[in-house]
């Protein structure tokens, strides 16, 4: 039995692959029989020619048998399908316009969908490039101010000592560094300082050279560096002699000891970082329990369950909170799986929304095609009826319809994969950063499977309508009414109208949804709350500790640089500060008010602090509402002063005047009081997420010099291109080793930071336009068909004296009614879907933003339905005039 099956299988397979051989065997077999027959006739004594003719007669038509036999070679269904597909090709090529429209429609619908799926796969689903990533966790220290806070060096040291019960922990801090190579201008690059075991914990060994050694954690041994593969290739040309090379980083020579593997270039966890150095904390820094600069990750040991590890981390945090209440009171620790904390995750909600919207586009495309195919089938109903009357089975009736849908779907899928790849290339292009880093989307088998799957589902969806029509076709009716031209009957009219209404509803949801999101994103991008970005140029410098070892030198450099910048004719004012107003200030500190009882530790009011030079406020365009700005009076030796924001003043002092009051940061003894000399307007960053604290406090740079500086320059008029060069030249003249990073207008800096938003905005616009376009094509199709069917009626109307306006009104009414109904349904759908969407997808979580959603709906809704009407009307009337002209000429 088994051997029989095997034999059968073997013959099947060999036939599949050796068709030529099978043909030859068949020839031989038939020829043998014929020869025998001929020989038999010959024996009867007839002529050679008669023998051959007789044999042919006896044998029958060889060609027919051959064809029949060939059919048995293919799996029978496939054979039919193949024939049906060939038939579909020829029938579609007879109406190339329709075929092209259908394929392009599908390609755009599926392509957009596939592109979003590819983005989702690459950003959310693809595992991090770390082996055994399930055991990796990111630690957080939650405080009342910051849900996802980081750790101080001393806290981390304690954790490291106790970590044997957990597994292994590592820490890192983001630390940009300036890079100066001989003969080249200095530049600033993204860097990370980390514990020596970071790569060990991540499970990523260097591909060249070595990892950091434990002793390199100590200050003094830390002049070593590991670089990324991207940096190795781009900056050093991928040469093997890279190990042992020395680079000047922050003014000191560092030896390159390792190159990370290419897989580590993944941006999702650490971002686009190319240079890694050991933390190199000195004794004082290691014991620092206040400065929470360390991000901590850990690898759970295999013997520990997730719950046990969580308990360990929480307990350890609680112990530190108890042991060091003055800094840790009110804090609690937790560990999240590393994969859930990556940059990519934050894009997840947006991506899901985009996939959802692209599905809407696909649905619209589907219903469009269903409509077209149905129309085609209705015009073919006479043919179908005849075939059915001649005894064609249901399967035989459906075959050409299914084949046509399948063919369109496959062609659409092929083009869709191209479209998706263009889309991915475009996203990648839009995400290119200044070092050539970019987001690349992967196209693996699952993405292809998605495209093909989507196209098959689509084929079934839009092939279904004509199929149902064909099955329910009433043969008698069809044959009788055939002479008068088919209208498709009442039920089908209703079905097609339903499709149009559905299409418009979907398009409306798409359009209204996209409009709301786009406006939300735009508002974020253009929000300049409490400061002004016009005519503003920003850039970053970091003064290396080697060249500027003390506060005096830092202050002297600041003074000199600002003096020279101010002297430029195009410059209105210039300043240095720790942060720009555009983004959140991560420097969050606790404050106490002089003359009031100290709150319990951990419950002090907190504020985001910016350290600014004297002309910061006029440069940034932040108004001083009361008191004064910082000025020449505020020096390292003068009494300490601060400026607080309006919100801080209201929160701390209510209706009292805050001027002259004093604040200090708890923890130091004695407390260092600073007098409030001014009240500044509140500043809101352009970032969607609200800052963890709403209070803002400014310290004078002269009293607290900082080496990390944002340079702000306000130009007199619209910043000329030369201004950027002039600024750079001034700084380079002061210190040739000092790189200026991101020197550009504040608006373009914001645009670069928000590139994801910009991409998202473009995608949403694209989907909305596509949706409306497809829906309009749909309504065009329906009106056009209605016109074609009613030409006789119109001709009679014209003949009886109707004016073109009456008839066009009649036609428009039918289209407009459908569009209107669909739009209204869609409007409700849009409101419902937006109310359900998670807040982060709205681009803004503020209540105010949420409140104005309905108003926007009605606005964007009315605009878009108007657009729909216009399109429908336009198309309808064009068609109408054509028709009317034809008819009148026909009747005349």
């Amino acid at each position: 039995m088994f051997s029989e099956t095997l034999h059968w299988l073997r013959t099947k397979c060999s036939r599949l692959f050796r068709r030529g051989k099978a043909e030859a065997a068949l020839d031989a077999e038939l020829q043998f029989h014929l020869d025998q027959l001929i020989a038999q006739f010959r024996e009867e004594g007839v002529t050679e020619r008669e023998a051959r003719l007789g044999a042919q007669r006896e044998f029958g038509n060889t060609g027919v048998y051959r064809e029949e036999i060939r059919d048995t070679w293919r799996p029978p269904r496939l054979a039919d399908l193949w024939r049906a597909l060939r038939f579909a090709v020829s029938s579609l090529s007879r109406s190339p316009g329709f075929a092209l429209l259908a394929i392009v429609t599908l390609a755009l619908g599926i392509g957009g969908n596939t592109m979003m799926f590819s983005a989702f796969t690459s950003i959310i689903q693809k595992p991090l490039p770390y082996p055994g990533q399930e055991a990796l966790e990111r630690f957080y220290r939650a405080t009342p101010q910051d849900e996802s806070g980081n750790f101080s060096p001393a806290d981390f040291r304690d954790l490291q000592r106790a970590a044997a019960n957990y597994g292994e922990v590592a820490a890192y801090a983001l630390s940009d560094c300036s890079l100066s190579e001989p003969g080249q201008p200095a530049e600033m690059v993204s860097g990370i300082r980390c514990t020596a075991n970071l790569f060990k914990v991540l499970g990523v060994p260097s591909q060249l050279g070595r990892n950091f050694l434990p002793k390199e954690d100590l200050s003094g041994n830390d002049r070593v560096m590991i670089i990324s593969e991207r940096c190795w290739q781009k900056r050093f040309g991928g040469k093997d002699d890279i190990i042992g090379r020395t680079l000047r980083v922050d003014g000191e020579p560092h030896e390159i000891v390792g190159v990370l593997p290419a897989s580590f270039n993944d941006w999702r966890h650490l971002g686009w970082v190319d240079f890694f150095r050991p933390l190199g904390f000195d004794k004082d820094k290691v014991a620092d329990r206040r400065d929470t600069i360390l991000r901590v990750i850990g690898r759970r040991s295999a013997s520990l369950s997730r719950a046990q590890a969580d308990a360990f981390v929480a307990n350890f945090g609680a112990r530190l909170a108890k042991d060091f209440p003055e800094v840790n009171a009110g804090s609690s620790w937790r560990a999240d799986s590393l994969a859930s904390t990556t940059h990519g995750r934050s894009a997840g909600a947006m991506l899901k929304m985009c996939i959802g919207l692209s599905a809407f586009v696909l649905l619209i495309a589907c219903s469009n095609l269903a409509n077209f195919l149905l129309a085609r089938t209705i015009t073919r109903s006479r043919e179908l009826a005849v075939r059915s009357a001649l005894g064609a089975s249901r399967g035989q009736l459906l075959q050409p319809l299914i084949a046509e849908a399948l063919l369109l779907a496959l062609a659409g899928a092929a083009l869709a994969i191209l479209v998706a790849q263009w889309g991915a290339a475009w996203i990648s292009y839009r995400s290119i950063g200044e070092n050539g880093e970019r987001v690349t989307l992967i196209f693996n088998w699952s993405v292809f499977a998605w495209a093909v799957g989507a196209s098959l589902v689509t084929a079934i969806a839009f092939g279904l309508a004509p199929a149902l029509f064909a099955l329910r076709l009433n043969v008698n009716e069809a044959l009788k009414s055939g002479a008068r031209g088919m209208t498709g009957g009442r039920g089908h009219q209703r079905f097609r109208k339903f499709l149009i209404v559905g299409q418009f509803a979907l398009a409306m949801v798409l359009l209204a949804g996209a409009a709301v999101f786009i406006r939300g994103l735009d508002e974020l991008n253009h929000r300049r709350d409490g400061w002004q970005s016009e005519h503003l140029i920003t850039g970053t410098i970091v003064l290396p500790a080697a060249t500027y070892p003390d506060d005096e030198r830092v202050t002297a450099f600041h003074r000199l640089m600002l003096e020279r910048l101010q002297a430029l004719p195009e410059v209105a004012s210039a300043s240095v500060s720790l942060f720009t107003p555009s983004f959140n200030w991560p420097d969050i500190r606790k404050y106490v008010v002089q003359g009031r009882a100290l709150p319990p530790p951990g419950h002090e009011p907190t504020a985001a602090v910016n350290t600014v030079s004297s002309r910061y406020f006029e440069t940034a365009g932040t108004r001083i509402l009361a008191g004064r700005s910082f000025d020449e009076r505020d020096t390292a030796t003068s009494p300490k002063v601060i400026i607080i924001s309006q919100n801080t003043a209201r929160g701390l002092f209510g209706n009292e005047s805050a001027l002259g009051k004093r604040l200090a940061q708890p923890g130091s003894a004695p407390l260092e009081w600073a007098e409030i000399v001014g009240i500044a307007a509140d500043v809101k960053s352009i970032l969607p997420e609200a800052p963890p604290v709403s209070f803002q406090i400014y310290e004078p740079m002269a009293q607290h010099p900082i080496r990390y500086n944002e340079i702000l320059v306000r130009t007199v008029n619209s910043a000329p291109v030369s201004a950027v060069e002039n600024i750079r030249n001034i700084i380079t003249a002061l210190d040739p080793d000092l790189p200026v990073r991101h020197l550009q207008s504040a608006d373009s800096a914001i645009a670069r930071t928000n590139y994801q938003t910009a991409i998202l905005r473009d995608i949403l616009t694209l989907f909305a336009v596509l949706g409306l376009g497809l829906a309009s094509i749909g309504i065009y199709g329906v009106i056009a068909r209605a016109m074609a069917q009613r030409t006789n009626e119109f001709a009679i109307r014209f003949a009886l004296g109707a004016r073109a306006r009456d008839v066009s009104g009649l036609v428009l009414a039918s289209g407009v009614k459908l569009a209107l109904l669909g739009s209204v349904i869609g409007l409700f759908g849009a409101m419902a879907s937006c109310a359900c969407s998670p807040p982060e997808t709205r681009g803004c979580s503020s209540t105010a933003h949420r409140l104005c959603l309905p108003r926007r709906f009605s606005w964007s809704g009315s605009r878009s339905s108007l657009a729909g009407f216009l399109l429908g009307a336009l198309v309808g009337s064009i068609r109408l005039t054509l028709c009317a002209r034809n008819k009148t000429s026909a009747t005349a």
Partner: protein
Amino acid sequence: MDKVRNELLQGTLDLLILRTLAGAALHGWDLAKRIAVVSNDRLSLKQGSLYPALHRLEDRGWIEAEWGISDAGRNAKFYRLTRKGRRELQAEKAHWLSFATAVQNVLEME
């Protein structure tokens, strides 16, 4: 009996082939001759029409084929009944006989 009127009933050809092959492995030519002899040449059958049927039966796994040497010393394709084919033959034969008996009973009623 008139040869022309003896068109084969649909499905009968398969049964004839299976039955004829039950005795021995045959090639198409022998098969055609055997059927003609056994039926006293009374079945009108284009000999070529055997081949689609043979290939169809082979496709269903009821018979299997093997190239061999014919009596005349030429290469020929020999068909043989498979076990599955044998079972099928039993079933079809029973079915046919009961059908034929039923028809006969009706025709010969008083």
